[in-house]
Every structure is written in structure tokens, then in C-alpha cells.
């Protein structure tokens, strides 16, 4: 694709992710995807902005909510959908499913359904990068809820003590399942993170892919050159329910108002001209990928006990 501007490119990528997830939501009731799905609809700009200036050789770790990162880091859509369908051509041969997307070839190193479990992996890979002089930066992404886990504290301390080229991305959608951040946090995430002697950036415009990408440009450069961690908190908003596909704003754990406010700032809603420009092309790509996933075979029984050690 040729784009006329950075904005266009980032828009395209964000829209593509949204349309892919909307397609997943459309397919879900057919039971073809038998795997819990955690959609990033509303949060796409974060993944797109974070990954834009990363190199293919840079690494990224994510959580169960990882479709957006998989795609933004350059993951193959066909392999992703096949994976969700539980098929052999999936990125994890069907063994992974939606919660465990990964692809070594693009530096997407893992996504885990144990909250906060990949934060320390980012630290470790950054250690390896430094020791082996790889000039790689490593990104590890997680939600606001993940910051409550002990290993989060441990990881921030380790990264700072050893001065490692790791970028922590806290994607703060204000919710852990149905629980609000204020109920769970005595601290303010980026302020608390700063107490580990880590440089910190707070971005409250989580819908603004350009702003995020620009901020990341400088951060990535600093981390790569100076081999030291950086912490980024990005405020964002989850449009759908925690797991599954529904809009659950009917449940009073959060407010419809907040939702409307976020939507009013969402370029993917605001800029319908761009949407129209890209929509059909993206649809075609998605349809082809869905067909690929449908046609891909299930893994053979022989795979059951393969790769255990």
C-alpha cells in the first residue's frame, strides 16, 4: 500500500485491526472460533502507535488481548485467523488460540493468559539483547490490572537495576474485567513507575495513533541507544465486554457517558472519509483470510503429544 501521510498509514492499520475484530465478532456466534476472545476494539491506536517505529528484529510480548499487537507488529492475518479457528495453519498450529498469539519471525514473542506474566519476559529478553549486543529494544505490554501483580514490581525494579533496553507499555483501559481502576489502585500508575527511577511518559490520548507513534519514536531511540528502560502509560477505552464480543454498556459497572466521550474522539469513527477510502480493500483481505482459515485443516491427532519435550 502507498500512503500519502503518516496519518493515513496509521489510520489504515488501526481500521484494519478494528475491521478484523469486528469480523471476529461477526463470526463468533457460529462457534467456528472456540476460544475465549478478548477484543481490542477501541484500543487499536495504542498497538498501532506503539509498534509503528519498531523494527522487525525488535521484540514484543503481550497478553491474552493481543490481536492488535500481533497485527501491528506485522503478523500474518491468515495465520492469525487460522489460529482462532483452531487450524493447523495457525500461528501456533491451532494449539494456541486467541489468547496465545505469537510469531517469532516478526518478533512477536508470546502472549499469555496469566495476567502480568510476560512483563518479566520483556525484561529478560532485554537483558539478552544487552548482553549479546543485539541493538534490539524489547516491548512488553499489559493492562492496568497487571500492575497489581507482584511480578510487575519485581520487573520494574530488575529493568532499572540492570539498566535494560525494555519499554513497558501499560495500556490503561481503566478496567480489569468489571472492576474499576480506582477500586484497585492506591497508586497512580505512571507516578508509581517513576519511583523505580525509570523515565516515564503518560499519554492520555490513547485514540491518537499519531501522537503515540511520535512519542514512541523518541522513546525507542533513547532506549536503543542508552540501554535503559522507559515506562509508558496510555489511557484508552475498551468498547466491548472483557471477554467475548458483546457491548455490555447496559451493565452498570461503567457508564455509557464515558463510552460516548471516547467515541467522540475516535478517528476511526470521526474520519468516515478515510474509512470509505480503505474499507473495501480491507474487507477483501479479511474475506480471503477467513476463507483461508475455513479451508485450513485441523491439526492431526499426531500433534497432540508433539512438542511437549
Amino acid at each position, binding site marked *: 500500500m502507498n500512503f500519502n501521510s503518516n496519518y493515513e498509514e496509521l489510520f489504515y492499520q488501526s481500521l484494519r485491526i478494528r475491521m478484523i475484530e469486528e469480523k471476529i465478532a461477526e463470526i463468533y456466534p457460529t*462457534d467456528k472460533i*472456540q*476460544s*475465549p*476472545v478478548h477484543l481490542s476494539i477501541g484500543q487499536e491506536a495504542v498497538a498501532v502507535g506503539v509498534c509503528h517505529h519498531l523494527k522487525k528484529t525488535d521484540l514484543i510480548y503481550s497478553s491474552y488481548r493481543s490481536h492488535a499487537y500481533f497485527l501491528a507488529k506485522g503478523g500474518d492475518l491468515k495465520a492469525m485467523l487460522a489460529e482462532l479457528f*483452531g*487450524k493447523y495453519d*495457525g500461528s*501456533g498450529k*491451532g*494449539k*494456541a*488460540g*486467541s*489468547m*496465545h498469539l505469537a510469531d517469532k519471525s516478526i518478533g512477536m514473542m508470546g502472549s*499469555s*493468559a*496469566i*495476567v*502480568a506474566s510476560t512483563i518479566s519476559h520483556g525484561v529478560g529478553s532485554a537483558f539478552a539483547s544487552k548482553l549479546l549486543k543485539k541493538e534490539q529494544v524489547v516491548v512488553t505490554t499489559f493492562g492496568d*490490572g*497487571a500492575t*497489581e*501483580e*507482584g511480578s510487575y514490581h519485581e520487573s520494574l525494579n530488575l529493568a532499572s537495576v540492570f539498566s535494560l533496553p525494555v519499554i513497558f507499555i501499560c495500556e490503561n483501559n481503566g478496567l*480489569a*474485567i*468489571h*472492576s474499576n481502576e480506582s*477500586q*484497585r*489502585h492506591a497508586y497512580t500508575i505512571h507516578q508509581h513507575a517513576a519511583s523505580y527511577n525509570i523515565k516515564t511518559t503518560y499519554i492520555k490520548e490513547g485514540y491518537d495513533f499519531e501522537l503515540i507513534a511520535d512519542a514512541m519514536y523518541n522513546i525507542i531511540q533513547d532506549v536503543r541507544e542508552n540501554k535503559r528502560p522507559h515506562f509508558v502509560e496510555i489511557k484508552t477505552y475498551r468498547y466491548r465486554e472483557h*471477554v*467475548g464480543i458483546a457491548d455490555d454498556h447496559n*451493565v452498570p*459497572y461503567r457508564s455509557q457517558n464515558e463510552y460516548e466521550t471516547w467515541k467522540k474522539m475516535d478517528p476511526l469513527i470521526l474520519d468516515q472519509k478515510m474509512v470509505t477510502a480503505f474499507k473495501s480493500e480491507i474487507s477483501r483481505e479479511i474475506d480471503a483470510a477467513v476463507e483461508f482459515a475455513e479451508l485450513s485443516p*485441523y*491439526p492431526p*491427532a499426531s*500433534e*497432540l*503429544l508433539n512438542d*511437549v519435550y
Partner: protein
Amino acid sequence: MVSIYSKPVTIKSLSYRNALLQSMSNALSQHSHVIIMGQGVDDHKGTFGSTLGLAEKYGKMRVFDIPLSEEGNTGMAVGAALNGVYPIQTHIRTDFSLLAMSQIVNMAAKYKYMYGGHFNVPMLIRLIIGRSWGQGAQHSQSLQSLFAHIPGLQVIMPSNAYSIMSSYDYAVNHYKGPVISFEHRILYDIEFNENVVYDADPFNSKKVREGSDVTIVATSIMVIEALRAADYVQKTLNLNCEIIDLHSVSHMDKKLILDSVKKTGKLFVADTSWQAYGVAAEISRLICEEDPSILKAAVVSIGMQPAPCPTTQSLEKLFYPSIYDFISKLTFLITGKTHIPDENKISEGYKKFKGPF
């Protein structure tokens, strides 16, 4: 320990979920020092329905959501128990309890003994075993063997609604130590119709079916599978299975098992986890150390395949033993002959779990 049956009850139909909800509600209403703490216990899903409405009724000091910090939360529960509170802690998946292992194993299990018997840590940890709909490797584990290896823990696997009622009542009202209870997610939706009887020792193993051809020892949801298989082989082949609901995997009723195997000469073990170092292993030890000659055939055991759980349905269905596997292996154990189960004659099982959680 031998089961002494008493206090027959005649509740007609009760789902596992409602038994849980009722047990939780009873505990809270009977004692002001009981609390329920866990992720989502106070939300509109209420831990798959098992704590629904309780926060509203008993207040958010007693039924509360807790930050994502399993080790700290468990330590908090231990500390609360040491100061007069009875904490009921929930983990919506067993897998998350691995983050609390040090508090459970190094602290809760040892608190009484380590300090010379002066302290008790009465508490209940509810761990939900996930299965189906692509739970995958990290939302499907069934880690009872890890806990059952550790002296000081009472580890139970209630297989039905009445077992929940009596076990949780006993845990809260009588037992003084930490109880780890494994609740199978698939059981939640099942209604239990039979009149089951309360036991004098609700943590004990129970014989749930009399028979002479084989002893089936089963845990959790595998008790239901065992009953279906037994039903089938009775109707179809006139074979009589004796079934023991193991229930407590840490304090199994050795005599009950040994007496049964002495009678039948054959043992079939159906557990929810991997077999290595699992329930079948421990029961094998029990028999081998007592008298291996009571076994007239090799033991057969079923459980998870020795791999992490794959997400795709095509492999997941091979990962867990099906009722066909169960019946064919069982039949072969009893008769020495191959039998291909007739699908139409298998009694209805539980509904297929439809995701996402």
C-alpha cells in the same frame, strides 16, 4: 475412616451453582466473621453465579473484589484467619493459584505445626478448573496433586451439589485448617436430582455405587462420567461397577478403597489431571504398600494426556478422555474383550460447555 451415613435429606433438585451460592450465603448469614474475597465476587456475573447478590446482601466489607495479586491476597487471607476471620477465597481458574503457592504451601499448610500447634488457619480456597471452548494451556489445569502432596492441607474435589453443601458447611463450621476445594467449571450447570445423604465426615470418600466387577475411583466431574459408564455397562453388558467418589484427594478413605478392590480385584481410576504423580499414582501406592496381590488385573487410569492443554477443539477432544474411551477401557478391564460402545445407549451427560468462560 469409614463413612457413617446419617442425616438423610430430601432436597429434590439442586444445581452445583446454586449449591455454591447457597453455601456461600449460609456461611455469611450464620457467621459475621465469614468473608468472601476474590476477583469479581461482587460483579454482575458473581463468580459464575456462585456469589451473585451476596455483596449487596452482606455488604462490601464482607464480599469484595480484590486486586490482582494472588500471593498477597492469600497472605491477607491467612492473616485475617489468624485474627478471627474466616476467609473464603476464590480463583476463577485453578491456574492462578500457582501465584499463591508460597502462601499456601510455605505458610497456610504449616502454620499450625511450625509454631507448635498454637495457631489455626481456618480458611477455604475455591479453585475453579476450566475445561472446553479453547481454555488452552493456562486456563485448564487441575492441580490437586500439587496440593495433596503437602501435609497440612485438606484438598477436596466435590463432585455434586450435595457434596458442596455438606463440605462447605463442614469447612466453615467445624474444620480448623486450610481447605483447598476444586470446583469443576463444567459441573456448575449440572442439576443433581438424587437424594444424596450427608455424611458424618463430609470430607471423606464415599461409595456412590455398589458393584462387584470393578472398582472405579473417580474425582470431581469424573464421578459423573463414571456413573454414566457404569450405567451403560450395566444395561448393555450386565456388568456391575462399584464407584468411589474420592472427594478428598489428600485424606482419602484407604479402607474403603482397599476393601472395594479386595472385593472386585480390579481398579479403574478416573481423575481430572495428568496421571504422573497424580491420583492414580497415589492409589496405586496405597495398594502396592498394602497388598498388590489384591489386584487381579493391571490398573487402568484415565485423565489428561501428558501435554499442556491444546486450544483447538480437534486436539482438545483427544486431550480429555471421552465417555467412549471410558466405557471401552472399562469394559476391556472387566471382560478382557473389546467392546465398541453404542452411542444411543449412553445416558445423557452434561451439556457441552459453550464459552467463552
